[in-house]
């Protein structure tokens, strides 16, 4: 790979995580997932594959679902990152989180982070998605426990909750 790069080895990288600006002197090649988990102690995003295949590490980057395991800091630089921890205005649950609790949409729950954040972004784009759209948007998120039925129920419930509360989350990833 050529030496000029969006990922220089040194220098401070600044980004916004859950509404707070953070700055770290880390190589631009470091994955956002490592920064979130190990420097910021935000455990919502999980390591599952490191290859962008499972969605366990999902975060919202400027409101769009992104795989933090393959997102180098050089690419995350200057962007607005939302993690599972940053969804709700403390205390309490974001409506999508509430819907997942209501639908009991977890067995082990390891995939839950990706499912919830993907749903948040989906409902921000389309407050009442159809079944096909829901399935498509979740198709890059794997669940080995087979919680799919409850997860789909949770997404529909979330659409209901957000529709009724008027909190349509027009801007995904922004704290309500």
């Amino acid at each position, binding site marked *: *790979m*050529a*030496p*000029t*790069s*969006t990922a*220089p*080895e*040194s220098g401070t990288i600044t980004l916004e995580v859950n509404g707070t600006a953070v700055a770290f002197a880390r190589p631009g*090649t470091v994955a956002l997932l*490592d920064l979130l*988990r*190990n420097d910021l*102690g935000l*455990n*919502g995003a999980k390591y*599952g594959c*490191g*290859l*962008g*295949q499972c969605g366990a590490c999902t975060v919202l*980057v400027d409101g769009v*679902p*992104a*795989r933090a395991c*393959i997102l*180098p800091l*050089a*690419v995350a*630089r200057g962007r607005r990152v939302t*993690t*599972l*921890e940053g969804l709700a205005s403390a205390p309490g*649950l974001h409506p999508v*989180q509430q819907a997942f*609790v209501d639908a*009991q949409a*977890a*067995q*082990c*729950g*390891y*995939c*839950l*982070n990706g499912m*919830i954040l*993907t749903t948040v972004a*989906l409902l921000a784009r389309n407050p009442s998605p159809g079944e096909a759209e829901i*399935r*498509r*948007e979740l*198709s*890059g*998120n*794997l669940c*080995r*426990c087979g*919680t799919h*039925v409850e997860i*789909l129920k949770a997404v529909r419930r979330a659409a209901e909750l957000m529709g009724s509360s008027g909190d349509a989350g027009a801007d995904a990833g922004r704290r309500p």
Partner: protein
Amino acid sequence: MSGPADPRPPAGVLRVFRGDHPAGPLHEEPEAASPDPAGHGAELFLSVDAEGRVTAYNGHVDLGTGIGTALAQIVAEELDVALDAVTVVLGHTGRTPNQGATIASETVQVTAVPLRRAAAQARRHLVALAAAALDVPVADLAVEDGIVRRPGANAAVGYGELLRGRRIHLRLDEAGAVKPAAEHRLVGRSVPRRDIPAKATGAFTYVHDVRVEGMLHGRVVRPPYAGLDHGPFVGRSLVAVDESSVADVPGVVAVVVLGDFVGVVAEREEQAGRAAEALVTRWRGFAPGRDPGAGEAALRDNPSTPRVLLDRGDVAGGLAGAATPMRRTYTWPYQLHGSIGPSCSVADVRPDGITLWSGTQNPLMLRADIARLTGVAEDRIAIVRHEAAGCYGRNCADDVGADAVLLSRAVGRPVRVQLTREQEHLWEPKGTAQVMDVAGGLTAEGAPAAYDFETRYPSNGAPTLALLLTGIAEPVPQVFEMGDRTAVPPYDYADARVTVHDMPPIARASWIRGVSALPNSFAHESFIDELATAAGVDPVEYRLRHLSDARAVDLVRAVADRAGWQPHAVPQTLPADGDWLRGRGFAYAVYVHGKFPGTAAAWSAWVADVAVNRASGEVAVERIVVGQDSGLMINPAGVEHQIHGNVVQSTSRVLHEAVPFEGGLPAARDWGAYPILTFAQLPAIDVVTMDRPEEPPLGVGESASVPSAAAIANAIFDATGVRFREPPFTAERVRAALNPLPGPEAAGPAAAKPTARRRWRPRLAPALLAAGAATLGALAAACLPLRSAIPAVPRPDPAAFSAATIARGRLAAALGGCAVCHAGPSGTGLAGGRAIHTPFGTVFASNISPDAEAGIGAWSYPAFARAMQEGVSRDGRNLYPAHPYTSFARAPEAEIQALYAFLMAEPAEAQVPPPTRLAAPFGERRMMRLWNWLFLRGGPPAPDPARSAAWNRGRDLVEGLGHCSACHSPRNALGAERGGALHLAGGTVDGWDAPALAGLAAAPVPWTADALHAYLSTGHDPAHGVAAGPMAAVVRSLAALPDADRRAMAEYLAALQAPAAVAPESRAAALLAAAAAEPQGAPALGRQIYRGACAACHEADGPTLFGVRPALALNTSLHAARPDNLVRVVLEGLMDPAHPDLGTMPAFGRVYSDGQVAALLRYLRTRFAPDAPAWTDLDAAVARVRAALDAPRDPAIVEFPSD
């Protein structure tokens, strides 16, 4: 919940123990500090403290099924306290009873029994205390929420109050009464799981989230004999570890080597990851034993011991007398548990003991392993159990725990070890393959003649890897007698024999959900379906005739009713829908677990509705009606969720899952090579639960998986009339059976002749070239003027140049991409050193910073201009044309001057790059004089008044400092760019094909000025793809130019295109439309990998994700004559994009074998470039490109001894 309880002794407590308590079965002792609840060698089940809080202890762990909630319900029910008052402590050495491994879903069914009795016993004792305190007969008292009172009376006393100042120990009464079901108010009611809110907010602490003060990060490097745990080479294969290979990785604390155990420890996780990838290890060759990939043959060939479980009636006679004898073989593949989170552990090894945070299934067994591994006594080892990702059996949780202990011991600090996805996939103890033979048949009356069942199950307990790798445990195969689960058929076969062939493992294997019962039932339930068809009887009716278990009969009827089962004696009674055939299948099973004869868990039955595409072979499972008789359901919602989970997971296993093997080793390292079911393939699920509150609760964790394979196979038979006896029922297998097609290679477009590689490749044979070198050199020396050195000057003062000139020079440097080649090793500055691979050898970029010694600080402008335009260094030596002075010679003089000013104003760097050494004849720099005489044509071209100003500007940029032709023109035998019609006709650079820019460009869609402008500005054009390799760096460099310049370049380049026969938009639309559908007979492995690894980001209707979504049908590399660019992108990924908005693509070089990459490319070419000829020799092409990369797939070097 599984969190540690408050360690402070409460001021008063009641505890229920099992085992001998020194003070006798019931005693009270004065309240005193006795913090160790199990300190008397007895096992503690329950405690109630003086606040009325209840803690329940259970030796099992939560494997992701929410078992803690069900246990809390049971305890709260018996004690009559609120659910919230109960804390459940699960599987924690030193605190919970030893109840063995959490397997076979027996937590509720078996291990909860003493806990329930303990709670009932505690209630009786507390009510007796209350009777005394209130002076009311026991019979008159009632309890609600832990408050005891006579109904209607005011006087009341709480459990906590009763215990204040008391310390009561009860010995568990194993026969004590429990509440009758009719009085249940909590048990049998759906209650929400208590762990989900924390899991939904990121507050839950999985083992992956454990952080310990002073913790370091570790990674392991596993041996090349992936997934094998026996054989003489295990633990004895490491030759050497080259620690210097990680010398330049920052943060590395230690490289730990113990036998074949290799690990690295670093300050940060990504540093540990980098070190583990970079570490060079050398291993002896090894010969794997039987090839697990051989399937049925491997199992038949494996030595075994028959164990007859059942032999009733006269089997031989029955078989001999059968009117229609039937012999069938059913085969099950190796499968993965596939936890979604690879295993992780944190260990802290201190002089006084070991603490291990682990997601283990069996804390006590793990503790024994750690004691054996370290020699530390078990009572100094604490296993702190945290939930991990769901595991469904034994995964790598124990392995990684032992790994963490070894690494922590080596560095004397806590170490967290995270396995990679690749390691978990390769090394997890697989769910084993299995082969079932059934001999039977029909009597003349259509009744079963006899049933002779044999099953082969190769597995062991998968000893913890570190024990094997360090040589502490002998790597000898052991035999586990686990093939007997549900080996006895549920039907009343009068003459029946059941034999289990116990055998050692082949690949490393251990139990997985539905251990052996799922494969055994696949055989039982397929065979009875075959009997029914042969007898001309409806399959459900036939089962009922031979089923005498009343609960089973009820369940079969209930499920058939719910599904609206239409009795039918022949297949294909449902109407087809075009190519989609429809079918419906039934299966029933009871999961019998534990050592034979075992214990029956819940009964389960399935009706599966499938659609089978007769052309493609694709099987869609559309609906499952699943019924279960679980006895008393503690938490009905929890049971239903478990059933859903079992249906989805087992459908995935049956349709999609088999571990691929290459050369006897597992070859799935990701979800592309081992796909699992996604939302797109989810069936509708209708659950029927039998209401049996008076029956004891049964395990529900696995039962609903057991009928899956047979129900689906029977449904496929119903749809197609063809029996499938070996899952997974992939499209490939089904199509091959229904509709045989020629092989994919032959089916593809006519194979093209390999395209001649002309670029960069000398037309003259190298020998001829070498022979002529001396002559040419002499000629050059004789005929051409020598160039003199230009005297050194002091570095010009940057202040001498105007800011405007420097700014202009900065743009010139961006256009020329100086830093693309001349940046220093850190990727910044101008210190040079980058290796540029040419067919003549490696040229190292020079230092062009203004350092007087190492760089160009002593160069006057004339010296600089001569280097730029004539390729002659200040000292008079010739430069190689890797420095594109033939292009720079065409740049306007003012640009060169500005560039000089800019470079002189940059910081000086003293680094000296490695010297360039080329092969003959180019090793002789004088040769270049002749070369220049032949090929250097100087001077900027005159403006063309017939063209627009933008075109003229574009030409200056492209042909001058932009030096596009340096990469995009072919070169002749002497490495010179070819001109005329071949100017910008495509070249190669550093192994990348640089596509043609002129004439009939290779892109599938003609380029337009707008498309070129987008591509040069963002590194992406939707109709062509993303800039990769050196072009990504060029785009980044061009970003500094004014937009008008990129426009001008686009305009000039667009004018070079041959006029398009078709409008670009309609061509793009046609290509996209052609690729939208799966081509018939598309290569199956490639399609599978594409779906698992590529589709989410590349498929047109994939999920919304950060970054662009390059359409592969329009991708230039996919339509190219050679696959090299595409291979390269797949192997190396694109983690350093031309523009950050593009997003990234991970590297798959470590994930896929050459064969897998080739299979992927075969699929991509067939589907996305259907008009292009198939690439031939793809395997070799992948190997060739891989060999040229800096980082090979596997750092392990395997040496095969010569003897």
